[in-house]
């Protein structure tokens, strides 16, 4: 069976507050390191069997369904193709699929949960309380499910080498000048965390960062007790794409700041190459709480970094309040701008009839027009960007990552 209490043989669960394995029956506490891997040897080869193979079918419904025998009660637990630990629906104890994290598939390190379920929920409610556009029903939300899940990550060492040409556009009155600057260099990364689960999008998982990787511990299956977990299911192509994307973003952001002076800057041309050190790839499990709730018939998921407590979610917003405040403020600012601009334009137009200063007056009016258009466009673009970002973390894929698990 799974790791048992040495005093009463009841199953143990990892307690984030105490950072120890705790017996729910007699209250005994043990460090995970006290239980040797050799004690779990009998279970390392026990595999989860595909339901199609068991029933001799070829059904699409059973494609991602596997049956695993619970280590505690012998009941049949249904897991998907990538789960490494779950809860048994019969006895409620943790069921660890040892064969998926044994031998060459064994993670090297883990960051144990630091936050309890209550801490995670409290952190979320604190954030929601402060949100001006968070609807009242969400501020008092009732969690449908709260699950602690260890997400698989690859910690990658790599070198990003690139040669870029940066285009800098500096406005000078009505005209603008363009300058080109060249930069070629290397950026080395250590322990760049890449989410190793296909089901969870990189955009969502990367927002859980930063993790304090200095607190990593040597992997021990006992840290999984009481939590869910997944194994890595990405291939080298996915890894290279994700690493290349991140390294390139970091490099380009840095290199743009190396160009002095104002104006807008963008990458005009680039050549790059990201070299991954495949020998130092480190397979790690990092903790996150997933909290789901219903709002207006739609499932929403909140992620909480299980180590630092960082909350990640796009909360549905009170659109009526937002747009009405926006319109009222827009009208007020328009009135103020009109009061300021009218006399300025009046004096410009009257002075422009005297030809000596008409050229500079024309430039000033031109600058005002450009400024007004730029301000309006920037405002619309920013609102669209924020709405897109909110929708990203409301994506169905995050909910799907959580939902298909045993209670």
């Amino acid at each position, binding site marked *: 069976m799974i790791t048992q209490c040495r005093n009463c043989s009841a199953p143990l669960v990892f307690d984030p507050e105490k950072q120890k394995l705790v017996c729910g029956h007699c209250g005994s506490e043990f460090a995970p390191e006290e239980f040797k891997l050799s004690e779990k040897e009998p279970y390392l080869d026990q595999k989860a069997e595909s339901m199609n193979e068991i029933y001799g079918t070829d059904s699409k419904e059973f494609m991602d369904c596997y049956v695993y025998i619970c280590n505690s009660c012998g009941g049949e637990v249904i897991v998907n193709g990538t789960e490494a630990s779950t809860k048994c629906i019969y006895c409620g104890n943790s069921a660890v699929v040892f064969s998926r994290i044994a031998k060459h598939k064994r993670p090297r390190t883990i960051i144990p949960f630091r936050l309890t379920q209550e801490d995670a929920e409290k952190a979320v409610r604190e954030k929601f309380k402060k949100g001006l556009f968070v609807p009242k029903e969400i501020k008092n939300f009732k969690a449908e499910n709260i699950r602690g899940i260890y997400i698989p990550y690859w910690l990658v060492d790599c070198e990003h080498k690139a040669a870029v040409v940066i285009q800098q556009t500096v406005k000078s009155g009505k005209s603008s000048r363009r300058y080109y600057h060249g930069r070629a260099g290397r950026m080395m990364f250590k322990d760049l965390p890449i989410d190793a689960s296909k089901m969870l999008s990189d955009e969502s998982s990367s927002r859980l960062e930063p993790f304090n990787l200095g607190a990593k511990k040597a992997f021990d299956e006992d840290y999984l007790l009481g939590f869910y977990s997944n194994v890595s299911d990405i291939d080298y192509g996915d890894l290279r794409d994700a690493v290349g994307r991140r390294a390139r973003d970091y490099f380009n952001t840095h290199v743009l700041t190396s160009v002095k002076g104002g104006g807008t800057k963008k990458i005009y041309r680039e050549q790059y190459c990201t070299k991954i050190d495949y020998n130092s790839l480190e397979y790690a499990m990092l903790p996150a709480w997933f909290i789901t709730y219903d709002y207006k018939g739609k499932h929403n998921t909140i992620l909480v970094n299980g180590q630092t407590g*960082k909350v990640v979610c796009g909360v549905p917003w009170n659109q009526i309040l937002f747009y009405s405040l926006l319109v009222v403020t827009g009208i007020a600012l328009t009135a103020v701008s009109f009061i300021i601009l009218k006399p300025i334009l009046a004096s410009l137009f009257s002075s422009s009839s005297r030809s000596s200063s008409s050229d500079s007056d024309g430039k000033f009016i031109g600058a005002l027009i450009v400024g007004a258009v730029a301000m309006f466009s920037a405002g619309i673009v920013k609102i669209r960007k924020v709405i897109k970002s909110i929708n990203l973390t409301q994506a169905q894929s995050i909910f799907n990552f959580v939902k298909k698990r045993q209670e």
Partner: protein
Amino acid sequence: MDILAMLLAIGLGFGLACLIFASILSKSNDIGNSIGEASKYSNGIYYDQSADKLKNNTAVENFGLSYITKDDRLRDIPPTDRKVEQSAEEPRDLGWNVDQIRG
């Protein structure tokens, strides 16, 4: 002239209102929209070549053309469709100063 002033005022007024409320909405409802900073994982860029205000089109088109070499692209890499695996060997020490990188 009044019409021009009104149009400019609408552009500035509503534009500013959009910027203000987009920031408030982002702070209120787009929670945790940030990823780990580069300084957590890297020491920054080591520049091998740098040139400001490139003089002409030729300089612009030719800058850094030979920086990425054939050797950089040619390497023994695992097949794209193979599942990622951890090396059985102990990780090599690449000589990067971890404390320096992490700050």
